């Protein structure tokens, strides 16, 4: 039930682009994206809803392909501040109104000068 993220790790130079994928074996109706900087708590980036539009957070955007049961996070013209671990989260089966999420294993992004 845990979503699978790929790749596990990415190393970029400033200004380069990256894509992080999040796939699920079950039908999705929403996908959440969070970023966690080293030693800090995760921070909410955006939520993708079934049938919704592509979302953006600064120069980070995300898409949601319901048929493929997959979401992708696009980091454009990466900055040093983008470094961290990115997690996707999907509602747990039968979570009802609990808001319970199951998180992927994370993708570590390192942006170098």
């Amino acid at each position, binding site marked *: 039930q845990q979503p699978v993220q790929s790749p596990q790790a990415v190393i970029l130079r400033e200004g380069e682009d990256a894509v992080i994928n999040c796939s699920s074996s079950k039908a999705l*109706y*929403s996908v*959440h994206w*969070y970023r966690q900087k080293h030693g*800090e*708590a*995760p*921070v*909410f980036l955006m*939520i993708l*809803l079934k049938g919704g539009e592509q979302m953006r957070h600064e120069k980070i955007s995300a898409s949601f392909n319901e048929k493929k049961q997959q979401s992708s996070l696009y980091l454009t013209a990466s900055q040093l501040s983008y470094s961290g671990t990115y*997690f996707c*989260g999907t*509602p747990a089966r039968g979570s*009802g*109104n*609990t*808001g*319970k*999420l*199951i*998180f*992927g*294993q*994370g993708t570590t992004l390192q942006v170098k000068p």
Partner: protein
Amino acid sequence: SQTIHQWPATLVQPVGSPLSLECTVEGTSNPNLYWYRQAAGRGLQLLFYSVGIGQISSEVPQNLSASRPQDRQFILSSKKLLLSDSGFYLCAWSLGLAAEQYFGPGTRLTVT
């Protein structure tokens, strides 16, 4: 605006000692509350969640327990800590179905 507090920020405890971590949320009512644990370099493991006062659901059988004595207060406890309880403990809140979660600053626990 809403804020979430956790304390203490860091804690070093010997094996077998008790534990009490506290989380409080301000600026919202009747939030869903969550406790996560994150081992070094690993992902987020959901430990407990609560949809209301006194309502606790456990995700992982272990020697930890949680309580919600007030609407915006969530407590994580243990009677006897194990070495494997070391980690980064995060409290989070959300409102309703499919809503985003907001995390507190976390407590870094080292059991020696």
